[in-house]
């Protein structure tokens, strides 16, 4: 078992790994068997609250020429967009609520309030990222193709600009997400069918037109004399959403303790090893219920990676069980306050903009560059973490 070479897991026998796998499976089954009206009420209420916030924000912003209304409306809209994108949209698209058999709250039909089309997201995120989590060269979320976030990634003078790219990515996060599935690197290296790229661009363009039209044309026009202040309010709300979601998402895999893997380590991987990789690849942060809801439950990143399609309102109770397992089997469980997790992320980003990385703890396979897998290669992959296995 290749993942057994990872030092965090070296003390486990093969039987223990199998046993862990069964225990993780048992957590899943017990939650699945218990899903019911309480959970349905949670998501329906959340959606109701979120839609009311949108309406309140839009109506308030009709008066946005009046500064207090601008502030209130912008705040409401930012909160509404954050809730929609994170705790609702992201989780619905993971299929967390498909069990309700409700076509209005279903991964197959949900379209979220951002410029990224659901279709592209479900591919780049649900499939590529959640299947090949933190595998260098396979998971495009390790640095998103523009940042050096791991010492194992070779340094290039391009990385000197990292502080700037990072700031730009934070500000324009929504746009980065929208273009993510295009896989710019594959296009640059001509490993992608241009026809497919054109098709994707068309889908993105259609979504962008509607999103931008709504925020920067339709509502400003409806506000009449408050046209300009509505534009700035909507832009600010989008910006707040961008910064917040950027920060939360960067705390998921980049703080100290969240590890990356080499392709060799996938060798012979079965479901138990897949669980272990998810466990070690993600980092949690602490917080109250409100913070967790506002961050799409990604403070439970570990639980989210272990069970991406279980309803997010169950993560707190799952987390208690996962932590207990980690204690029993002496496994790492990375968690810290949000400011510390983000602080570590930022420090790593800045440090890795320069060559060398002597302070990093683990440097397996340093300097070797795994070739990036093309989408076609990923599609052909049918090992244990192929998409059905990962979500079923």
């Amino acid at each position, binding site marked *: 078992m290749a993942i057994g070479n990872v030092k965090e897991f070296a003390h486990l026998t093969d039987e223990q790994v199998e046993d862990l796998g069964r225990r993780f499976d048992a957590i899943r089954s017990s939650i699945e068997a218990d*899903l*019911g*009206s*309480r*959970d*349905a*009420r949670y998501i329906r209420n959340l959606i*109701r609250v979120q*839609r*009311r*916030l*949108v*309406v*309140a924000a*839009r*109506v*308030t912003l009709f008066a946005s020429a009046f500064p207090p209304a601008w502030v209130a409306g912008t705040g409401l809209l930012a909160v509404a967009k954050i809730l929609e994108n994170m705790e609702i949209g992201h989780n619905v698209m993971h*299929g967390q609520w*498909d*069990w*309700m*058999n*409700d*076509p*209005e709250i*279903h*991964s*197959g*039909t949900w*379209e*979220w*309030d951002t410029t990224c089309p659901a279709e592209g997201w479900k591919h780049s995120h649900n*499939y590529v990222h959640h299947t090949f989590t933190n595998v260098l060269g396979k998971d495009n979320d390790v640095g998103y193709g523009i940042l050096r976030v791991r010492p194992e990634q070779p340094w290039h003078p391009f990385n000197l600009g990292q502080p700037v790219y990072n700031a730009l990515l934070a500000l324009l996060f929504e746009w980065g997400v929208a273009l993510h599935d295009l896989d710019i690197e594959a296009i640059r290296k001509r490993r992608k069918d241009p026809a497919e790229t054109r098709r994707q661009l068309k889908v993105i363009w259609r*979504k962008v037109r*509607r*999103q931008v*039209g*709504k925020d920067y044309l*339709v*509502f400003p026009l*409806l506000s009449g004399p408050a046209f300009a202040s509505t534009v700035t309010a909507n832009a600010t709300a989008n910006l707040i959403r961008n910064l917040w979601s950027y920060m939360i998402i960067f705390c998921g895999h980049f703080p100290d303790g969240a590890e990356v893997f080499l392709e060799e380590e996938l060798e012979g991987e079965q479901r138990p090893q897949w669980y272990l990789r998810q466990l070690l690849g993600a980092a949690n942060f602490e917080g109250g219920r409100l913070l967790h809801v506002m961050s799409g439950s990604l403070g439970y990143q570990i639980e989210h990676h272990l069970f991406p399609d279980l309803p997010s309102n169950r993560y707190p109770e799952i987390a208690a069980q996962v932590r207990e397992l980690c204690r029993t089997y002496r496994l790492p469980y990375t968690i810290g306050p949000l400011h510390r997790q983000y602080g570590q992320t930022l420090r790593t980003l800045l440090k890795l903009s320069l060559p060398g990385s002597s302070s990093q703890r683990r440097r397996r396979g340093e300097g070797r560059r795994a070739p990036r897998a093309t989408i076609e290669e990923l599609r052909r992959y049918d090992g244990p973490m192929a*998409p*059905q*296995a990962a*979500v*079923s």
Partner: protein
Amino acid sequence: MSARTHLATVALGALTAAAGATAIEARRRVASRGIGALRPDTDLVRQVVARMTTPLLPDDYLHLLNPLWTAREVRGRVVRVVPETEDAATLVIRPGWGWSFDYQPGQYVGIGVSVEGRWLWRSYSITSAPRPDQRHFAVTVKAMPEGRLSGHLVRGLAPGTVVRLAVPQGGFVLPDPPPPRLLFWTGGSGVTPVMAMLRTLVRRGTMPDVVHVHAAPERSESLFADELRALADQHANYRLVEASRDRPVRVGDLERACPDWRLREAWVCGPERMLDDAEDHWRRAGLGDRLHLERFSASRTAEAEGGRITFAASDRVVEADGATSLLEAGEGAGVAMPFGCRMGICHTCVVPLASGAVQDLRNGDIYRDRQGIQTCVTAAAGDCTIDI
């Protein structure tokens, strides 16, 4: 905050309600004329409002004000639950936007109810006559022993509950004008579609020559017994023959109960056995084309082997036993499965079988080539993959 939210909700509601409502109205009117599109002007209004609500539809906001104000998923509100017998009740439902009252007497409607957070769907024959001037329609449900939904509908449904509705469909209908001589033969809850036909005939005031053989195990269990007897009193053309466990009417007795049955166009609905017998009887008389049958359940004579079902496009895999239909298995795994009657009648549920084998629960037939299969009446025969 909450006061403002409420105000705001009302404001947007008012703004879009007009637009949405006219659009839906238009769609309903246009649809009834059989033209596919909305009138261009209302269509435009709706499109403009949708620019504000994108990526959602105006309906997604409006149904928060009133659950019936959406045509995205047609909804209905249960306004009354009227007990009929010990184990049957009539649900009077007020449908919301997108519903059309131009269904034909005898058709059934799909009703979805959220039970423990999950939407369960079943089909029920509409028992009320189609009347666009009324804003309700009715179905009558008999609680099946150990049934998952029917018991809940009869005993556990509070008035005010919002249910989902699928458009009425089905070919077990009364033609307009009706044939001059009819035979209705109903058993148990099978009287429901015929009830809509009788009520339609009464409403039109043209009762043709009808013989109605209606069976129920006990008199006290007989659905609509009072209404049917009253009909017989009022209409000389309508003759009611009541059968029960003590006085059964089987196909062999038909000659006695209705000597001229060969001259009548027949509508038969009831238990599986009765339907099989009737089918046989009419076919042997060479009168198969005069017989209309409605089956409420597919008799499951076969049990498949079960296996691992892969829903290819949805990336789901489930293990299912041989009694679980592919439709139920898919829904349980959160796959958005298409369906209609759920009983092997309408073919709405057909999905391509990509590989492996499935077995027809009605007759044990095995399908294995690339072909469309009815997921509601087939189960896995070993591992299989379907394209959805």
